Each structure stands twice: as structure tokens, then as C-alpha cells.
């Protein structure tokens, strides 16, 4: 998209903000009923007697069974037509098609926030009124480039009583090319591995040595200064001539963090990432393992070993030297 095209696209896109999704409050095809509640409870493994046990419910505070509050949005759904004929036109569908026509065909529900005010019970009718409440500016995310839009829905019953509200956020994005051209196949789930090390002209040699179990430290051939991470020129004398020495992986903790959140697939937790002073005089960033996180401290003596941490990755892992932890 050129900047002009983007502007024209956004000018039209943002006209959807504030639009009603349905021309009139949408009534659920069926009133709240025990059959749908039972089916939902069975599938979700929810044995709450407030939903299905009328005998228990009669003696409870409420005096009757209720619908699971989390079913609120289910009552007004369109149904099988969505699969057989496609979703019937409404304000949201119109906007989604506008996104799709401009390449933002990926769709991902990201957030749902519901508030519940009154519990629905069998026999209640559910009405939904929804608007497109907001559309973000263009965002670049791990999924691709796109826009978040948020719908806001109010649910009322046959007496006009507000039973709950909902905010639903969706990311509409340009899907990555490989997903569009290479459908996934049957087969075992691929177990994720750690982030792949970037191997360029200046550092491939270092990672290749790591794969063979050696941690090297670059050394200036002119002034003998050691440096890490790998780079083409000596910071002391600007020479580009270099060789390397192998580290003994004796070191101590200079500083460290424990990564809690977000948890990345492929990493083992607890995950301690440390800046380590190596005996040779350079620093390296690596994991400290083999002890309780609470026992790790600045200045702790550690010793590294290059290990296979997952099926695709060799990395130095540092262990406390006996007597150093705690």
C-alpha cells in the first residue's frame, strides 16, 4: 500500500467506528433452555448443579437453575448457516469484507471481556445490541500487520433488563505468505525449540564452534585484546585481523534475571538469564541451571558446559561450582 492508498483505506475504514452491527436488537433464536445448557455443561466438564440440577437449585439461594454466565454470547449466535452458506450480512461482516478485500484477510480473536449483572434462567429471551466500538491505528505484530477492532455488545432480557455487556477484540491482519501457500499437514505436533541463533558473516564461526561443544572468544591478532560477542573490528586498535581462543567456561555471575512472563514455547522454566564474567576477562550471556533460583547470587562461582538444550540447539549452560550456591 502506498501512503496515499493507506490513507484512502483508513479514511473509509474508520467510518465503521460507531456503526451498529444489527439494524435492530437481535433476539436469540431460542430462549434460554435446559437442553443447550446441558450440552454446554457436558462438553466443558462443568458439573455445577446451579446449571443442571433442578432439585438442588430449588433449595439453593437462587431457587432455580441458571444459564452459565459464560454462555451469554452463545444465545444470539447465527448457527450452522455460518458454515454452510457463510455468515449473513451485518455491520461487522461488511467491515470484515472490506478488510479482506484490502488483503487483511487474517482474523484472530484476541480478547473478550464480559461483565454480568443478572443471571439468565431457562425461559428468558436474550437480545443483543452491538456496535463497532473502536478500530486501532495500524499495528505491526508477530502475526503480521493489521488493525485491532473492538465490538461492544449489550445483552438484555425480555423485560429490557441489562444482563451483561461484552467487549470483543479481533485482530485483522495480512497473513504471512507461507501460511497461505503451504497448508499444514497431518502429523505430530512439532515441539518448539529455542529461538534460532542468527548466523551472519561476522558470527557464524562462533555458533558453528558452539554446535561442536566449544565456546570461543575472539582475539585481536594485533593487540591481543579479547572481545565478545563477535564483531569484525577490534575496539582498541581497529584491526580487523583476529583469531580466537577457547574459553574454559570458568566464571562468576555478574548479574542475572529470572524470566517469568511471557513464557516462550521451547524454553525450560524456571529460566535464569545471567551476564557472566568469564575467567578470560570477557562477559557472556547464558543460562544458570542446576540449582534453585533462590540460591543464585551475584558473584557466585559457576562453570559452563555446552549442552544440547533441545533437538536443534546447543548452548553453554552454567552450573554452580560445588560450595558456591546458597
Amino acid at each position, binding site marked *: 500500500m502506498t501512503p496515499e492508498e493507506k490513507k484512502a483505506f483508513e479514511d473509509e475504514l474508520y467510518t465503521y467506528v460507531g456503526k451498529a452491527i444489527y439494524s435492530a436488537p437481535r433476539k436469540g433464536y431460542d430462549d434460554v433452555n435446559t437442553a*443447550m445448557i446441558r*450440552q*454446554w455443561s*457436558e*462438553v*466443558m*466438564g*462443568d*458439573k*455445577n*448443579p*446451579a446449571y443442571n440440577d433442578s432439585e*438442588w437449585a430449588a433449595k*439453593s*439461594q*437462587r431457587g432455580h437453575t441458571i444459564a*452459565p*454466565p*459464560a*454462555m451469554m*454470547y*452463545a*444465545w444470539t*449466535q*447465527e*448457527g*450452522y*448457516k*455460518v*458454515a454452510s452458506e457463510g455468515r449473513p450480512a451485518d455491520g461487522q461482516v461488511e467491515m470484515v469484507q472490506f478488510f479482506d478485500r484490502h488483503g487483511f484477510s487474517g482474523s*484472530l*480473536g*484476541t*480478547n*473478550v*471481556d*464480559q*461483565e*454480568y449483572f443478572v*443471571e439468565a434462567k431457562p425461559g428468558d429471551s436474550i437480545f443483543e445490541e452491538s456496535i463497532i466500538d473502536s478500530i486501532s491505528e495500524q499495528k505491526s505484530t508477530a502475526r503480521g500487520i493489521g488493525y485491532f477492532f473492538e465490538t461492544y455488545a449489550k445483552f438484555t432480557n425480555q423485560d429490557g433488563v441489562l444482563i451483561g455487556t461484552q467487549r470483543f477484540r479481533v485482530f485483522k491482519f495480512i*497473513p*504471512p505468505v*507461507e*501460511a497461505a501457500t*503451504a*497448508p*499444514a*499437514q*497431518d*502429523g*505430530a*505436533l512439532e*515441539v*518448539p525449540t529455542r529461538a534460532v541463533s542468527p548466523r551472519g558473516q561476522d558470527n557464524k564461526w562462533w555458533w558453528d564452534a558452539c554446535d561442536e561443544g566449544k565456546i570461543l572468544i575472539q582475539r585481536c591478532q594485533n593487540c591481543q585484546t579479547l572481545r565478545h560477542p563477535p564483531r569484525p573490528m577490534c575496539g582498541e586498535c581497529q584491526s580487523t585481523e583476529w583469531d580466537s581462543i577457547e574459553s574454559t567456561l570458568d566464571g562468576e555471575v555478574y548479574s542475572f534475571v529470572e524470566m517469568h512472563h*511471557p*513464557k*516462550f*514455547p521451547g524454553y525450560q522454566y524456571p529460566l535464569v538469564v545471567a551476564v557472566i564474567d568469564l575467567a578470560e576477562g570477557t562477559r557472556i550471556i547464558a543460562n544458570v541451571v542446576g540449582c534453585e533460583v533462590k540460591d543464585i547470587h551475584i558473584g557466585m562461582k559457576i562453570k559452563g558446559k555446552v549442552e544440547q538444550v533441545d533437538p536443534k540447539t546447543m548452548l553453554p549452560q552454567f552450573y554452580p561450582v560445588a560450595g558456591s550456591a546458597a
Partner: protein
Amino acid sequence: MNTFNYADVKVGDKLPALEIPITASLISCGALATRDFEPCHHDKSVAQGMGLTDVFMNILTSQALMARFVTDWSGPEAVMKGLKVKLGAPNVPGMTMTVSGEIAAKDDAENSVTVEVTGENNIWGMHMSGSVRIALP
């Protein structure tokens, strides 16, 4: 079945963890039980066309499992006031999701507690995180 009293719970209390095997049956039946007939939740070829190995869980099922996790713990007289969920990595068949939670706040005016909940699958990590606000007797 007993229901916790508001006075008996405190911030920091942990809920019993729940392990849920993710199967094609749970995903497709969960989608239909929430009346979500988007084909990617029941038709494997559609899901594979989107780059996933198989059908993936719809947001209303994730939300339902989060709600169930909290009411399993609270007991049936508790009244749900709100539920927030943020989706992460998809749940696809063959995974196990472990749901865990802890009381993050108490609201004396409403007699409600806010339980922070996470659901992590064993392959891709965080599937859902969010909170459930529930009023106790």
C-alpha cells in the same frame, strides 16, 4: 456442594490446578455447544488451510473452561460478575492445557474476589490469561 464464604478466602490463595486434555472432540463439540460454527473449529481441512495442524479451540470454549475452573473451586452459590480473557497460542488436539489461578484481589463492597487465571498448553505455552470476578456468600 459447599461454596466458599467471602470471609474464608484471602488474596494469594491458589486454586487447585486443572489439566485438560485437548482433543478434536473437545474442540469441535465445544464450538458447537457455544454455537460457533466457524469451519476452522470443526473442519480440519479449513484449519490446515490456515497453517494449523488441526482444528483449534474457539474463544468461547476457552472462556467456558476458565469459568468452569473458577466455579469448580468456588462452589455453586457463587455469582459470576465478570470474565476477561486474552488469547495466546492456539489449543490444537494432542496438547494438554493446565489451568491455574490465584486470588489477586478482594472487593468488600461487592463481596467479590478476582481470580487471575492462566491456561498453558504443554507445546506452545500460554493459551489464555485473564481473570474471573466472582461474588461469594
